[in-house]
């Protein structure tokens, strides 16, 4: 799919460079001429949106570090200083904070797109697994970044989450002390979180490079789930998808900047405007919204170790998803039963998010237990069995055929009222 371009460059400088380092050829073949299925819908634009968000987070983050001080006595004040004194600091800081939320909105849509259209199936298993690694790295980055403003929620979030590791038998306490660099979350912890929060985005960049590399080996999936069979099924990436992606990116950024300009604190917690106090825990501590479903799974299980295991398992299970789904048909469009299960899973995940935000008592605990059970049943029981019993709808023989059939249906529908 990533065949070598035979293009001859007329510019002598480009020709000179390309014969020594074929970077121009590579960009042309991989980013411009790259054959892309012609039926991609807007759910496929979230890859480009995510790349944009990574760049926004990198730029705003590097700029924030020019003004931020990673020390327990100064961190909180230096973030206030950025908000109040630094030129455009208020916008840059809010763009970084809200950018994290929107990064997760985009990644969740991107992941559910993959679940709906079976993007994890052969030959894209490695592509999918790198994606899960990216998700894990994002969660670690987001968690450590949230600690840096050193507010009450930053501190207690850090304490509770690092304490998860104390559930590990025998070595738990030693591991937590090692993570903290002390006997509690303190300056040593803040400084190492800062260091790693700066490092991880570059690890993310490397993982994204591998993700795109794997994508360019197998080629894009598509909503029909039938592989590309001829040149008729594809269009060049540029300009068709560069422009479609750009349009989607701009619409997405409209929402992001809507929050940044008009409701910058909506996704945050007011208590984080109180400086960290190691002696007082806020009455109701919750993680950022994007961790809530996993937090609900953690709390749904009354045993400390098993709760932690279930929480990590709920993410790690995605690594083996390509082998749990036994159906050969990729797209949920042609899998009527799977489509129903998919939407139930969406509701279950949203429900877990709602439960995670509530105090762990009464009906909320029961609800999160039921939802947690369904989450694991979906992946471990329903998916493997469904592939054996479900009768998929007939697949079109090619992407082109499905596109033409759609157009024909549209034109007859349009023609009918005229009669």
């Amino acid at each position: 799919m990533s065949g070598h371009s035979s293009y001859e460059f007329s510019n002598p400088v480009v020709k000179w460079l390309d014969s020594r380092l074929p970077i121009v050829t590579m960009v042309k073949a991989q980013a411009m001429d790259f054959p892309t299925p012609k039926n991609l819908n807007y759910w496929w634009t979230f890859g480009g949106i995510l790349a944009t968000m990574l760049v926004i987070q990198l730029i705003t983050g590097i700029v924030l570090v020019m003004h931020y001080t990673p020390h327990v006595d100064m961190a909180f004040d230096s973030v206030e200083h950025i908000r109040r004194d630094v030129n455009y600091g208020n916008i840059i800081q809010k763009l970084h904070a809200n950018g994290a939320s929107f990064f997760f909105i985009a990644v969740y849509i991107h992941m559910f797109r993959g679940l709906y259209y079976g993007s994890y199936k052969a030959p894209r298993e490695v592509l999918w697994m790198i994606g899960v690694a990216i998700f894990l790295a994002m969660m670690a980055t987001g968690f450590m970044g949230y600690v840096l403003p050193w507010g009450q929620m930053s501190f207690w979030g850090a304490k509770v989450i690092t304490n998860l590791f104390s559930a590990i038998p025998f070595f738990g306490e030693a591991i937590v002390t090692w993570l903290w660099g002390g006997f509690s979350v303190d300056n040593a912890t803040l400084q190492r979180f800062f260091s790693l929060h700066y490092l991880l985005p570059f690890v993310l960049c490397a993982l994204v490079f591998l993700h795109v590399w794997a994508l360019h080996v197998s080629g894009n999936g598509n909503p029909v789930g039938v592989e590309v069979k001829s040149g008729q099924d594809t269009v060049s990436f540029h300009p068709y998808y560069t422009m479609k992606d750009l349009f989607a990116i701009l619409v997405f950024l409209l929402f992001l900047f809507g929050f940044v300009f008009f409701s910058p604190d909506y996704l945050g917690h007011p208590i984080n405007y109180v400086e960290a106090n190691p002696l007082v825990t806020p009455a109701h501590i919750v993680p950022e919204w994007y961790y809530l479903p996993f937090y609900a799974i953690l709390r749904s299980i009354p045993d400390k170790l098993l709760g932690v295991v279930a929480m990590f398992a709920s993410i790690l299970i995605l690594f083996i998803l390509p082998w749990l789904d036994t159906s050969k048909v990729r797209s949920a469009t042609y899998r009527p039963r799977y489509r129903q299960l998919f939407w139930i899973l969406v509701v279950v995940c949203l429900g877990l998010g709602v439960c995670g935000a509530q105090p762990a008592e009464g009906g909320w605990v029961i609800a999160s237990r039921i939802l947690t059970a369904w989450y694991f049943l979906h992946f471990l029981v329903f998916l493997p069995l469904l592939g054996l019993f479900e009768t998929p709808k007939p697949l079109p023989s090619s992407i082109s055929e499905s596109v033409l059939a759609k157009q024909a249906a549209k034109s007859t529908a349009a023609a009918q009222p005229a009669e």
Partner: protein
Amino acid sequence: MAGACAGGREIGVTQLHREGLIIVSTMETTDSERRDFLYIATGAAGVGFAGISVWPFIDQMNPDASVLALSSVEVDIGPIEEGQSITIKWRGNPVIIRHRTPKEIEDAKAVPVADLPDPAARNANVADSADAADANRVVDGNEKYLVMLGVCTHLGCVPIGDAGDFGGWFCPCHGSHYDTAGRIRLGPAPENLPVPPFSYLSDTKIRIG
């Protein structure tokens, strides 16, 4: 070099020198055995040294000397009235010191150890094997004063005093209830609140750590 010896053929040293290649060879050991040994030895040394050199970079994250130096603090507990608690900071963590009322002590003593979720004393000042009877939660038989880390054994939040179903402490994070001896009674926390190492310097002064 490897190419010159392909097939295990013995080539005269002079001939190799003439071709610009250096080789060390003896008649007793064939080249391939010798090289296998050297490759494995070099590889093992490389892996070994790389492994050893990782340790300083891991260990630097452990508590440093300045953190360890702060491990002892003296507190005057005389001014604490009956039924009153104070919280002080020790090793970055809150330590709760409570002057218990006679009723609180009675309540704690009335509970059979067998009914406790965590039957161990969790007291650094008594033997590890001691049970969680109220007498083993205090030091020197001084039942009035309960000294313990205010760090929930579930996920590290600070429990709130005079709260919960057992008249002791309640953790707001995930709903663990502790009794008037700081023992876990209900909720996800696995252990009793730990009693730190401390000693009475006088009737009204203690040193923690």
